[in-house]
C-alpha cells in the first residue's frame, strides 16, 4: 500500500482513528472504576512503551539485551531530579530530558554490542541493570538524601494544570504512548528500521552493503533506552506514584523480555499484546483462584503456577510460533479473510449456476 503521510498507509490511519476512538471516547465513558485505570490501563501503557523500547533493540536490531528495567530506573530518577531541581523545564520537558539521560546510558552500555552478540551481549547489558540500580541506591543525591528508601513522586502538573486523578493520568500516558508509538512505527518502516533489520538478519552482510554497524547499533540502543526511560518515568509517576530502586530490579527486565517475546519479536503491536497478556493473565488467574476454588489455593501457589505457565508458553511459542502472539493475530486475520472471500466466491458461483 502506498503511504499517505510519512510512512503511514491509509490502513494505519484508519487503525489509529479506531484506536483513538476506543481509548479516548469509549474507555473513559464505559469504564468508571478506578481500579481499571490505576492497576491495568496505566501500567499497560507504560509497560507497552518499555516493551517497544525492548522491541527496537531486540526485535528489530536483533541484539539480545536484558536491561530494560535499568534504563527505566534511570528515566524515573532523572525525572524526579529534574522536576525537583529544574522546575522550569515543566513535565513534558522533563520527560524528554529524562528519556535523553536514559539514552545516554543506553549508548554507554550498548557499546559492547559492537563487539559481541547473543548471550555475551546479554551479560554486558546485565551490567547496566545492576550498575544503574546500585548507583541510584548508593548515591544519596539521586534520591535527594531521603533516608526512607521510598520517595513519593511529585504531582504531575502540565501548563499549570494538575493531573492527579486516575483518568487524567491515563490520558497523560495515552498521549505520550501514542506519540512515541507512531514515531516508532515511522522509524521501523523508514530507512532507520531497514538498517536495524539488515543488522538483525546478518550483521556482516549489512556492513558489507554499507550499513554502518556502529551507527545502527548505537542508535538502536539509544532509542531503545529513550523509550525505556520515558516509560520508566511514567511508570513511577503515574503507576507507582513513588520511586524506589527495588521496583526496577532484574525481575522487571525479565517481565519486559517476556512481553516482547510472547507479544511477537519485531512488531510494534506485539508490544501492546504482550504487555496486556502478561499484565492481565495473573489477574485472570487470581480471579479463577478466588471464584472457582474460593481461595482454597494459596496465593503463592497461584503465582508459581503463573510462572510455570509463562515459561511453558515461552517454550511453546519458540517451538511453534517464534514470532509470537502478533503473528497468531495476523494468521487469524488472514484465515478469516480467506474464509470470507472463499464463501463469497462460493455464493457467487452458486448464484452463477442458478442463473444458468
Amino acid at each position: 500500500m502506498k503511504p499517505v503521510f510519512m510512512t503511514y498507509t491509509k490502513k494505519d490511519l484508519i487503525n489509529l482513528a479506531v484506536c483513538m476512538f476506543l481509548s479516548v471516547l469509549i474507555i473513559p465513558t464505559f469504564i468508571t472504576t478506578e481500579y481499571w485505570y490505576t492497576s491495568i490501563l496505566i501500567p499497560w501503557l507504560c509497560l507497552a512503551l518499555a516493551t517497544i523500547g525492548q522491541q527496537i533493540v531486540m526485535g528489530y536490531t536483533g541484539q539480545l539485551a536484558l536491561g530494560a528495567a535499568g534504563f527505566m530506573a534511570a528515566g524515573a530518577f532523572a525525572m524526579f531530579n529534574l522536576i525537583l531541581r529544574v522546575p522550569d523545564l515543566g513535565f513534558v520537558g522533563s520527560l524528554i530530558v529524562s528519556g535523553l539521560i536514559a539514552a545516554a546510558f543506553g549508548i554507554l552500555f550498548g557499546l559492547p554490542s559492537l563487539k559481541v552478540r547473543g548471550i555475551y551481549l546479554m551479560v554486558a547489558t546485565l551490567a547496566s541493570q545492576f550498575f544503574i540500580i546500585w548507583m541510584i541506591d548508593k548515591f544519596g543525591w539521586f534520591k535527594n538524601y531521603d533516608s526512607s528508601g521510598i520517595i513519593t513522586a511529585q504531582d504531575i502538573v502540565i501548563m499549570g494544570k494538575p493531573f492527579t486523578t486516575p483518568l487524567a493520568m491515563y490520558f497523560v500516558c495515552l498521549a505520550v504512548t501514542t506519540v512515541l508509538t507512531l514515531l516508532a512505527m515511522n522509524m521501523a518502516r523508514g530507512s532507520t528500521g531497514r538498517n536495524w533489520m539488515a543488522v538483525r538478519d546478518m550483521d556482516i552482510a549489512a556492513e558489507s552493503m554499507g550499513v554502518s554497524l556502529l551507527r545502527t547499533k548505537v542508535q538502536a540502543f539509544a532509542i531503545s533506552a529513550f523509550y525505556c526511560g520515558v516509560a520508566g518515568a511514567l511508570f513511577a509517576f503515574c503507576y507507582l506514584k513513588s520511586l524506589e530502586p527495588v521496583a526496577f530490579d532484574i525481575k522487571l527486565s525479565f517481565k519486559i523480555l517476556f512481553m516482547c517475546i510472547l507479544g511477537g519479536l519485531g512488531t510494534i503491536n506485539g508490544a501492546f499484546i504482550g504487555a496486556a497478556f502478561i499484565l492481565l493473565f495473573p489477574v485472570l488467574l487470581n480471579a479463577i483462584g478466588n471464584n472457582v476454588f474460593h481461595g482454597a489455593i494459596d496465593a503463592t501457589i497461584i503465582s508459581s503456577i503463573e510462572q510455570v505457565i509463562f515459561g511453558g508458553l515461552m517454550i511453546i511459542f519458540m517451538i511453534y510460533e517464534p514470532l509470537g502472539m502478533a503473528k497468531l493475530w495476523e494468521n487469524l486475520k488472514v484465515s478469516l479473510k480467506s474464509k470470507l472471500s472463499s464463501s463469497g466466491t462460493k455464493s457467487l458461483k452458486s448464484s452463477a449456476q442458478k442463473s444458468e
Partner: protein
Amino acid sequence: MVDELLFFMEVLVGGLLAGTMYSLVALGFVLIFKASATFNFSQGAMVFFSVLAFCGFMQDFNIPFVLAFILAALLMVVVGLCTERLVLRPLMNASEDTVLMATIGLGYVLEGLAQAAWGVEVRRLDLGIGDFPVPWIADNLKLFISALDITAGLVAAIMIIGLFLLFKYTKIGLGLRAVADDAGAASSIGIPLKHIMLLVWSAAGVVALVAGCMWGARAGVQFALVDLALKALPVLIIGGFSSIPGAIIGGLIIGAVEKVLEVYIGPFFGGAIEGWAPYVLAIFFLLYRPEGLFGEKIIRRV
C-alpha cells in the same frame, strides 16, 4: 605491614574459594554448551530446583541424607529427559537465540514448579560442615578461612578432574566432543545424539545439585539462588563458554576480584559493588578477548 599482608591474603583466599562456588554453577553451563552449543539459561533455576527438592525430600519426608541426594539426582535425570524430549528435540534446527529464549522459559517453569511443590519459605540446609573458620588453619597460618569454602573448593576440584577424565579418555567423552564439533556429522557416523543429550543434561543437573548444596548451606535454600547463579555468566565470559578449566579459572578470578574490590574500594562508594563488579569486569574481557581466556575463537560466516 605483616598484618596488612595477612589481611590481604585472607581476603584473596576467601575470594578465591568463594569463586569456586561460582565455578560449580558455571560448570553446568559449560557441560551443556560443550555438547550442544546451546546456552542453557535455566542452569540457575536447575540449581534452585534440585537443591529445593533435596531439602524437601529430607525435611518433609524425613528421607535420610544419602537417599535424598540420590532421589534428587534421579529427579534431575528426569528433568534432563523431559527437557531433551519436550524442548530441545523440537528446537533441533532452530537458531541459537531461539533456543536460548526457550531455556529462559524453561528456567521459569522450573522455578515455578519448585515453588509450587515445596513452598516459598527459606529452608536451612545443614551439610554438617560449618561456615566458620577452620581452627587449625587459623592457628598455624593466621588465616581465617571457612570450612565450607574449603569443602566447596575440594568438591569443585574433584568434579573438574572427573569431568576432564570423562571428556578426555572415555568413549562417551569422545562422543560428546564429536557432537559438540558437528552434531550432524556425529549422528551420521552413528553416535546416538539423543543419548548424548540426555547424558549431558543429567550430568548438568547433578552438577547443579552439588552447586546448590554448597550455596544452600551458605545462604539458605531460597529464590535468591537464581540471581546468584546469574553471576556464573561473567565467570563463563572470562573463562570461555566451552572450557571446563576456563570455568574454574573464571570463577577464581571473579571471586578474588570481587572480594578484593569490595574490601579495598567498596567503602569509598558505600559498598555492595559486588553486585555489578563481575559484570563490568566481564565487559572489559569482552572488549579485549571476546572468546574468553580458554574459549575457542568464534568464527562466523556470512
